[in-house]
């Protein structure tokens, strides 16, 4: 096929191609990993935004529905857990707690029509929905970025490069179903197959 004198050249060319591909794959992994990290950080940003909204929400509801002490207590509890959480897992657990307490609060709010007719309260709800949507989008972006990197990390031959770059499989974020009274749909329940 190839004249004998070109054999060495041919072999060098093949090796060069492999090395170039390897370097490209290595850098890609570094980038993908950083992307996952930044998507994770973005979730935190949005969770913080929601965290900051809660006192206003509680205050406006308390004025009207002051006797619903259990829910307010749970919400305050979950909130302080969130601010005290240090590891990623703790924060995920705490934010799930906040969500469940919030949804219970919103169910209660349905029973107080005076709240619904208050423009200030409606504005607060708009802000809350906006924040919930941002959290959901951030979670989805995070899961999408995990999907991209996991596909390459596990596939051959890129898994060799991944091992060399110390880039490992990342963990998907599973979020619980949250019921909201107002039409905000939680589309963060993407549980991709492993």
């Amino acid at each position, binding site marked *: 096929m190839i004249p004998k004198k070109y054999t060495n050249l041919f072999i060098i060319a093949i090796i060069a191609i492999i090395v170039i591909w390897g370097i490209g794959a290595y850098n890609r992994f570094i980038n993908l990993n950083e992307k996952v990290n930044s998507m994770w950080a973005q979730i935190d940003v*949005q969770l913080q935004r929601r965290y900051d909204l809660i006192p206003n929400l509680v205050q406006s509801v308390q004025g009207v529905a002051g006797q619903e002490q259990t829910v307010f207590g749970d919400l305050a509890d979950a909130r302080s857990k969130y601010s005290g959480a240090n590891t990623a897992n703790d924060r995920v657990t705490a934010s799930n707690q906040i969500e469940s307490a919030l949804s219970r609060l919103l169910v209660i709010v349905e029973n107080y029509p005076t709240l619904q007719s208050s423009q200030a309260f*409606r504005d607060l709800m708009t802000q809350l*929905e*906006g924040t919930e*949507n941002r959290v959901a*989008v*951030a979670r989805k972006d995070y899961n999408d970025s995990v999907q991209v990197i996991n596909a390459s990390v596990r596939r051959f031959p890129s898994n060799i490069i991944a091992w060399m770059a110390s880039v490992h499989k990342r963990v998907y974020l599973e979020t619980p179903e949250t019921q909201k009274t107002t039409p905000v*749909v939680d589309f963060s329940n993407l549980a991709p197959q492993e």
Partner: protein
Amino acid sequence: MRFYFFTVAALFIVVITMMFLSVHSAQAYKSPGKPTGYVNDFAEVLSSDKHIAIEKELSNFEKATTNEISVVTIPTLDESPIEDYTNVLFREWGIGKEDKNNGILFLIAVDDHIMRIEVGYGLEGNVTDIATKHLQDDIARPAFRNGDYAGGIIGVVSGLVHLVEPEYVVTSMPSSAMSSQTVQGERGGIDIFNILFIVIWIISLGVPLFAGIIKKGAQSKAWWHGGIAGGILGIIFIVIWSAWIALLISIGTGLIIDFILSILYEKNIRFKKWIDALNTRRGGSGGGMFFLGGSGLSGGSSRSSFGGFGGGSSGGGGSSGSW
């Protein structure tokens, strides 16, 4: 030699199949299509003059301030949640400049009676969720309830424009009091000049080049010349239609065709004579025409077709409404 041909052909088939498999993902979202301008009236609720007026206003706004506001009407969401749909569409079209993320999307699902204003990362400070909610509740809702989609959209767009740039003066859109102030606007879309320039460009570049390659390809036993011809064809496809898959198909087809031509050349004397006689010395003049055609192409496209949005993104900010 035939063996190598088959392995290469098989390789291309495998690669193409893999590409299709990796790209395909099960999405409930169905794209409404490519944007034809800042206003995309897929539900066809706007009269032509209103459409043109709003389009002109948003186009001028973008030219003056780089912010990209887009209005999209669709008949129905088909059960898809509006937040999901709007965010995906926002990112698919890339509304807003890539570095500033200064885009806004106003989506109206006409038959579902739901709407949403989604705000890009960069504008979330000026255009708050509450502000967008008020625009929808106070301006769009009453207008849409009366079937006055144009009035509602114009009101919301004016509101958005003022939120983003309080000093900006709306010039092209009629105020809600008056109606038919017909404005001569530029409609987006490919028109005859665009097509003409592309054709001239392809001919001037392609013909002498192809003649030379076909001649060389048939004459030589090696069939990688066909790959080059296919590669050039593929690049043209990419430039016009962003079809990377076509590049692979073109290279593969080019290789196969060259292989066939090589065999023909060897076996058929008449074919050989015809190929040898092909005049390939007009390559230089072809090169000269290329530049002319190329500059004509860029002139033609900037005049009339909608170039698309700037690649910006949204983080889910904004609000939804209904009527």
